[in-house]
C-alpha cells in the first residue's frame, strides 16, 4: 500500500495501527506490562461518509478515535489524513491540521469549561487559529448557535444554565467553528435521554449535508449507530472484528460478537421482546493486558471450538465490503465460504482496500439464513 490513498476517496487511512499503554511499577518505573488498547487495526473512512465504531467499554474504540485526531501518538502503524502521514507528526506540524479534525465528547458536563461563557467556548478555536477579528468571530458564533438549534442570545450564558442536550449542542458548535473535514464523535448521545438523543442524531445528520462533514461515530449501542452510519466497524479488545455496510450488518452479521451486540439492544415491543431468542453474553470483556489467545472473543462465544483458542482468525473479505474475523462465520453461504477459503490469506491491509467504495462489478454474496 504505497500509492497515495486519496484516489479512492479515503479521507482517513488507518494502517496497522497499534496503541499500547505501558504499565509501570517500582522506583525505576520499569514497564511491567502493556494494555493492548488498539492492536493492529486497519480501516479507512471515505470523504463524506459516516463510519460507526461500535464495541463494549474497554474495546479500544475511544483510543482509536483519539489516535486518529492525534490526541494520542500511536505505538506503531500510521494514519494518513487526506493523503498525508500524521502518525508521528510533532505538535507544531500538527497544528494546522487540527483545523481539519475536531472532536465531540461524551460527557456534556465535563467537556465544557464551567467558567467560560458560551461565546468564548465556541470562538476560542477560531481565536487560536487566528481567524477573523473579534467582531467577525462574534458574528460567526451567533451563526453557529443558530445552526445547532440554540439562539444567539445564549452568547453570554454559562454552561451550567443549559440542559445536557443543549450543552451537547454547544459542543457541536465548537467542533464546527473551524469548518473541519472530519469530526470524531465519541459517544455523543450516550449521556442523553432517549428523546434528546433523537434530536442530536438528526442534527448531526443535517450538519453533515450542510457542511460536507466526515464522521467517525463512536458508540456502544448499535441502535443509534444504524441511523447515522454508512458503514460500521465492530471492535473487540483492540481488534477490528467486523466491518460492513451499515444495513448489511443488521440483516446478516457474520461475527458472533456482532450478533450478540445486536441481540442486546432492547426491543420496545413487549410481544417481540418475549418471543425473540436473546443471546446474553456472559461476563465482562477480558483484560486487555493479557488478552485471550487465538480469537479474543472465544471465552464468551457460544460457537467457539478448539481452533478458536489457538489460531487468531484473519480479517476476511466476504464480498460487498463486508469483512469479518471469525473461524465460524454466521450468515455466509457455501459458495462464498469456499471462495474465501481458497483465496490466499488476507492481510488486514489488502482486506480493507476492498472495503472502500469501488466499482460495483464485484461478486456479491447473497444474504442467506444462518448456515448450519
Amino acid at each position, binding site marked *: 500500500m504505497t500509492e497515495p490513498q486519496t484516489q479512492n476517496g479515503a479521507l482517513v487511512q488507518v494502517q496497522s495501527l497499534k496503541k499500547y499503554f505501558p504499565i509501570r511499577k517500582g522506583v525505576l518505573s520499569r514497564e511491567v506490562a502493556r494494555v493492548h488498547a488498539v492492536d493492529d487495526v486497519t480501516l479507512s473512512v471515505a470523504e463524506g461518509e459516516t463510519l460507526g465504531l461500535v464495541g463494549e467499554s474497554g474495546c479500544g474504540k475511544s483510543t482509536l478515535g483519539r489516535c486518529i485526531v492525534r490526541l494520542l501518538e500511536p505505538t506503531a502503524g500510521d494514519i494518513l489524513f487526506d493523503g498525508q502521514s500524521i502518525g508521528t507528526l510533532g505538535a507544531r506540524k500538527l497544528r494546522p491540521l487540527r483545523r481539519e479534525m475536531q472532536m465531540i465528547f461524551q460527557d456534556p458536563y465535563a467537556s465544557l469549561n464551567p467558567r467560560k461563557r458560551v461565546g468564548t467556548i465556541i470562538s476560542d478555536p477560531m481565536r487560536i487559529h487566528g481567524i477573523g477579528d473579534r467582531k467577525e468571530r462574534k458574528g460567526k458564533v451567533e451563526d453557529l448557535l443558530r445552526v445547532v438549534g440554540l439562539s444567539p442570545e445564549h452568547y453570554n450564558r454559562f454552561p451550567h444554565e443549559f440542559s445536557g442536550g443543549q450543552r451537547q449542542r454547544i459542543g457541536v458548535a465548537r467542533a464546527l467553528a473551524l469548518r473541519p473535514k472530519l469530526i470524531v464523535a465519541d459517544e455523543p448521545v450516550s449521556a442523553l435521554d432517549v*428523546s434528546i438523543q433523537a434530536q442530536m442524531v438528526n442534527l448531526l445528520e443535517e450538519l453533515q449535508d450542510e457542511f460536507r462533514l466526515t464522521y467517525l461515530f463512536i458508540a456502544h449501542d448499535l441502535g443509534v449507530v444504524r*441511523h447515522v452510519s454508512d458503514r460500521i466497524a465492530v471492535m473487540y479488545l483492540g481488534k477490528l472484528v467486523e466491518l460492513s455496510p451499515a444495513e448489511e450488518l443488521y440483516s446478516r452479521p457474520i461475527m458472533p460478537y456482532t450478533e450478540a*451486540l445486536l441481540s442486546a439492544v432492547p426491543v420496545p415491543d413487549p410481544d417481540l421482546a418475549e418471543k425473540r431468542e436473546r443471546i446474553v453474553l456472559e461476563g*465482562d470483556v477480558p483484560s486487555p493486558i493479557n488478552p485471550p489467545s487465538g480469537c479474543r472473543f472465544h471465552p464468551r462465544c457460544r460457537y467457539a471450538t478448539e481452533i478458536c483458542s489457538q489460531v487468531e482468525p484473519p480479517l476476511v473479505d466476504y464480498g460487498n465490503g463486508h469483512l469479518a474475523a471469525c473461524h465460524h462465520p454466521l450468515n455466509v453461504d457455501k459458495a462464498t465460504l469456499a471462495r474465501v477459503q481458497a483465496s490466499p490469506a488476507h492481510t488486514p491491509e489488502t482486506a480493507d482496500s476492498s472495503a472502500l467504495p469501488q466499482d460495483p462489478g464485484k461478486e456479491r454474496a447473497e444474504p442467506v439464513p444462518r448456515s448450519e
Partner: protein
Amino acid sequence: MPERLLEVKGLKVRFATEDGTVHAVDGVDFELNRGEVLGIVGESGSGKSVTAMTLLGLTRDKNTRFEGEVDYKGENLLDLPESRLRDVRGNQIAMIFQDPMTSMNPVYTVGDQIVEAITTHEPTGNKEAKRRAIELLRQVGIPNAQSRVDDYPHQFSGGMRQRAMIAMALSCNPDILIADEPTTALDVTIQAQILELLDRLRADFDSAVILITHDLGVVAEVADEILVMYAGRIVERGSKRNVFYDPQHPYTWGLLGSIPRLDRPKPKKLHSIEGTPPSLINLPQGCKFRPRCPHAFEKCFEEPELRNRVEDRGHLDRCWLTVDQKRGVRDSTIAGEQRVVA
C-alpha cells in the same frame, strides 16, 4: 388477589429554592402489588427519581414540602419519624442507584458493605452475615464469589458493581426494590444481563420492583405496569400492553417514536420530541406538554385530568384529544410525520 404493598395518593413534593418553588412532583397516584414490576418512564426532570426517593424519605429537608400519602402496610411513610424510617430503608424497601461507580464506599470491601447492610437490620453474627453475602453475590452472578467478596469496589467492573449493589439491596429480603436507572451507565450487553437478573430475582425473592428509566425499550422487557411521567405528573398509566400497543398520550408517542428500532426498516429521520422539558419553577399554563405537543389546540390551555378514556378500565391518560382524534394521528406521530389536528 395479590398483596397490596404500597399505595401512593396525591403525592406532591415541592422544593423551596432561591429562584422560586420547584414543583418536582405534582399529584402522583399509584399502587404496587407483591411480585409486580412497575416501570416509571420519563425524561430528566420529570419527577420520577424524586418520587422514588421520597418513598424512602431521602428528599426530607427543611426546604421540602410534602403533600399526600405514601401508604406502606398501613403506615404513612411521609409522617414516619426518621428513626422508624431507618428500619424500613434497606430492610423493607431497598434502592439501587444509577451510578454503580459512586454508590459504593471505595475504602471498604464489597463484602464488608453487604455485611453491614445485613447486621444493621438483623441480629446476625459477622460470620453468618459474610456467608450470606457470598451466597448473595453468587445469586446475582458474580463468578468466584468466595474470593471476590474481599475485593474493593474498584476491582469490580461497572456491571459487577451494579450486581453487587443489587446483592446488597436484596440482602434483607426487601418487599420492594427501587431501581433508579440501574442500567443507564452500562453497556448494552451488560444492560441485558442486569435486566435478566432483575427479572429472575423478582421471582426468586418475591419482591415488587419499581424500575425507573428514561428508555421505554428497557421497560418493554420487564415491567407489568407503566407510568409515564412528565413535569411531575403522570400523563399516562396502564399495563405494558396498553402503553405499547394502544398509547394514548402524545408524549408517550414521542417517547416511542424516538427509540431507534432494529426490528423495523430504518426511517429517513429519527423522530424526536422537539424542545426541552419545561422549567419546574415556571410551568406552562394548562397541559404541561402543550408547548412541545404537535397536536395542541385551544382546549389545552386548561389542564386535563388523569382519567380513563378507553375501554380498558386500568388505562388512564391526561389529554384533551378524543380517542377517535388520537386514532387518526397516532401512528403518523410515532412515525415522525407531524400533523396538526383541530
